[in-house]
């Protein structure tokens, strides 16, 4: 009985893998979820806002749990442009977002993933395969076993396990995706970014007062400009229960060229006068760093499936990193769900070949995931444009400074001020180009 085949083996218990596992358990499938970290979430680093409503599909009414895996719901968003001294923010807060299902929740992955894994286990326990489905941690999958170019199982160390299908949800370092031949080995460095993050603790009351939080409401703030010290990328700040997650993502190639380390950039960001005020009195309790992809479609795997295997989440480069916010967890969750639903169908038809599995790609194409990714490619490309993370924020802050200065001189019209700022920071021509591109992309 033990050595019998699994319906599916899922590699990687990140968001995509856990979403897939939950879906399989609910559909009464016999599966194995394998995670190399000591526990689900131990290796995962996200800033993290999990956007969208899919979490409620996986864990209905998750907000009712006393101590669920999430930190706060978002009802307050802010986009901040910064130069070396000033910030200029676009700020939106609405009580419209106060009721569940929330449109976004902040999570700390080491806690959230573990919690979600617990929920998956509960679902396994309720299924027919309570004794035959497993979540196994601290196990690294070394190889996907292939027979006639069809995935038939996995190898870890000396051990081999067989399955009708494999879901690869291994995240951004997608070695197995490459091993099965769905992605080229070479991914250009300018499509890779490093994300680093600090968790900074406050007295909960202080945190709530400082960010005007109410109950479990929370804020997300993205930063463009000085936050990355001239390197392509952006910064973020999210409020957790009694900590904030503060960090940034920065292009690896650009960093290398400018000879800057993520650590230095984060320190520069933190020493900005406005950020200094924001984090005063906090204590850094965690520091972590992780590679994150750019979400450029050009580096997506050649295909998302082949006989017996599907690629979900960031392993498939399903991510959007367009300056305004990183979205990767919600895409990972949706793709995990859709992938698992396809495996369920494959079992019904007893056909795990591409014939059935291609429906995963079709479902993904119909979903908001691929629509978003397709629609925002221009914005993703703009991320590489130095004007976007340098000149434009400088210009906006300069305009802000002029606009808000009252210095006993005749006050100029804002249009004039804008023109002055533009002259100083950028040529009209550049700005028009960016404006056109930006308008088209967003």
């Amino acid at each position, binding site marked *: 009985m*033990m050595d019998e085949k699994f319906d599916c083996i899922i590699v990687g218990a990140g968001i995509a893998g856990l979403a897939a596992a939950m879906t399989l358990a609910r559909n009464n499938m016999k599966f*194995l979820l*394998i995670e190399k970290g000591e*526990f689900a979430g131990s290796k995962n680093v996200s800033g993290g806002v999990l956007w969208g409503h899919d979490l409620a599909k996986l864990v209905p009414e998750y907000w009712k749990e006393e101590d669920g895996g999430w930190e706060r719901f978002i009802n307050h968003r802010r986009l901040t442009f910064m130069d070396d001294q000033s910030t200029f923010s676009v700020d939106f807060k609405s009580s419209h977002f106060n009721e569940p299902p929330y449109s976004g929740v902040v999570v*700390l992955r*080491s*806690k959230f993933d*573990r919690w979600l894994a617990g929920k998956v286990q509960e679902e396994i326990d309720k299924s027919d395969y309570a*004794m035959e489905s*497993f979540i*196994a941690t*601290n*196990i690294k999958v070394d190889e996907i076993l292939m027979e006639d170019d069809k995935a038939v199982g996995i190898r*870890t*160390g000396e*051990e081999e*396990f067989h399955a009708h299908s494999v879901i690869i949800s291994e995240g951004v370092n997608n070695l197995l995706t490459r091993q099965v031949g769905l992605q080229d080995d070479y991914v250009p460095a300018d499509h890779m970014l490093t994300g680093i993050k600090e*968790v900074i*603790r406050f007295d909960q009351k202080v945190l709530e007062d400082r960010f005007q939080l109410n109950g479990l409401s929370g804020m997300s703030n993205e930063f463009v400009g000085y936050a990355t010290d001239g390197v392509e990328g952006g910064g973020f700040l999210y409020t957790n*229960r009694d900590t904030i997650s503060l960090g940034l993502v920065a292009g690896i190639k650009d960093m290398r060229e400018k000879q800057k380390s993520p650590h230095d950039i984060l320190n520069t960001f933190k020493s900005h006068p406005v950020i200094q005020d924001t984090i005063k009195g906090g204590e850094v*309790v*965690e520091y972590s760093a992780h590679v994150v992809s750019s979400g450029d479609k050009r580096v997506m795997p050649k295909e998302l499936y082949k006989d017996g295997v599907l690629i979900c989440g960031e392993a498939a480069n399903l991510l959007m990193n367009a300056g305004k916010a990183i979205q990767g967890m919600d895409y990972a969750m949706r793709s995990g769900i859709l992938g698992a639903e396809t495996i369920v169908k494959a079992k019904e038809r007893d056909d795990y070949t591409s014939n059935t599995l291609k429906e995963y790609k079709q479902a993904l194409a119909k979903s908001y995931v691929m629509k978003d990714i397709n629609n925002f490619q221009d914005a993703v490309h703009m991320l590489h444009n130095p004007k976007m993370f340098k000149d434009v924020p400088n210009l906006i802050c300069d305009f802000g400074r002029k606009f808000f200065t009252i210095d006993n001189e005749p006050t100029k019209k804002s249009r004039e001020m804008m023109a002055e700022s533009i002259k100083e920071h950028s040529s009209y021509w550049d700005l028009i180009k960016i404006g056109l591109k930006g308008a088209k992309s967003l």
Partner: protein
Amino acid sequence: MKFYVCIKQVPDVDAPIQIKDGKLIQDTDRMVLNAYDASAVEEALVLKEEHGGEVEVVLVGPDKAKETIRKALAMGADKATHIATSGDEDYDSATYANILATFFSDKEYDVISCGKQSQDTDAGLAGSMLGEHLDLPYATNAVGLEAEEGTLVVKRQGDAGQEIIGLPTPCLVTCSNDMNEPRIPSLKGIMQSKRKPVEDVALSDLDIDESSLQPKTKVTGHMEKPEREPGQKFEGEPEELAQKVATLLDEEENVI
């Protein structure tokens, strides 16, 4: 040989912790198998592989400690007893030793192994307490074990060096993590662990009246240890650094 290994679930000391109103809060709630107990399990498994026998783990703790029991079973222990507590109690080493002593009073075994201490509290008491309650010859802080006919040979790290002690079985030993590198459960091990027998025992099954378990010691609060401030860090030419620091140690600190 029949081994009982007493295992404890402890908070992961590597996880971030904070203190709120004197209480320790670890909000990731990461609980692990006490590292010293993992070494005790490992050593028992090695001896079993050499000499045959059975390894059974015993844990006193709340429901969520099942996870830790599974870990020991996944490593290769044959079966387990889970003595359930509510999880809200503040038992000290003596309380656990009392419960375990009651459990063992009608059991047969060659060796009871414990960890030399709990990783979170570093108390290092429960093992020898249990030995005393059960009137067993015992040795603590073992860094090596060997089995001979009717005798467990313990190498223990003592004050004056390593003592080689022969203990007639049945006996008790507490294990240091310097003894071995505990195996990481294989996937097969993890899968098999789900089918291994875990016997659930309530305190009432042992005729223990919970109200009689009043600990004589209590933890009344926690505080962060006053942190050492990082001092000066020197980078540069080795010769210069060496000279600079040597001079500072001599002239500023007066410790040379």
